[in-house]
């Protein structure tokens, strides 16, 4: 599974993208957030308040309870500020 981070989440975590084998217990975005938060202090810090974070699965915005599968690209980022 490919995980991507943008803006201050990328800075906190220290990488813009990581490939991780999908843990069997990870069935939703929420499960994945718990799994990733255990990886480092930076991860835990970046994902500690999910009200500040948007999630996209395969380029589509999803809620925290959205299901995920091994082939997905999951991205975490702050509310957008383009334009």
């Amino acid at each position, binding site marked *: 599974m490919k995980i*991507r981070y*943008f*803006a*201050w989440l990328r800075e906190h975590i220290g990488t813009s993208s990581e490939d991780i084998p999908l843990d069997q217990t990870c069935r939703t975005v929420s499960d994945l957030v718990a799994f990733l938060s255990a990886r480092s202090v930076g991860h835990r810090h970046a994902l500690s308040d999910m009200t500040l974070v948007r999630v*996209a699965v395969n*380029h589509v*915005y999803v809620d925290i309870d959205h299901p995920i599968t091994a082939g997905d690209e999951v*991205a975490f*980022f*702050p*509310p*957008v*500020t*383009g*334009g």
Partner: protein
Amino acid sequence: MTIRIQEDDFDLASIYAELRAPLSPPAASTAQEGTLSVGTLSAGAISLFIGLVRDINDDQRIDAMTLEHYPGMTEAKLTAIRDQAMRRWQLGKAIIIHRVGKLYPNDQIVLVGATSPHRHAACDATAFMMDYLKTEAPFWKSEQTTDGNTKWVASRDSDMTARSRWQKT
């Protein structure tokens, strides 16, 4: 070339020339079937919006800003926003251009444009595309202030409010 994400600057005059050029007859007939206006090749109304880097934000002077985006999702989102506008209004052409990378005050950041036989369709579609771009397209700005700090720009509630006015009841 209706969606562009680029580091390079863009040239308004050449974009305007593209928008102003009459539709080719096949495109025109697809646009509106069953009326004599099938043959309407001239736009009638062209609306353009250009966003520039401001020299002040939240009462702080800005030296430069860096625009990051999510390649792949950005193109998909901008295409979806443009498609929504094309379905909702009777448009001839619609274009969205957004720059990424390092930009300086008064640099062009974004251009949105639409053509239509009707002026309100062109103007509304332009405002609609900007409101959706502001709230859905995955771009993030970090600003470098004159005191040497760099900070991520916060999203604004007013942008969500602006988008909600387009939701049909």
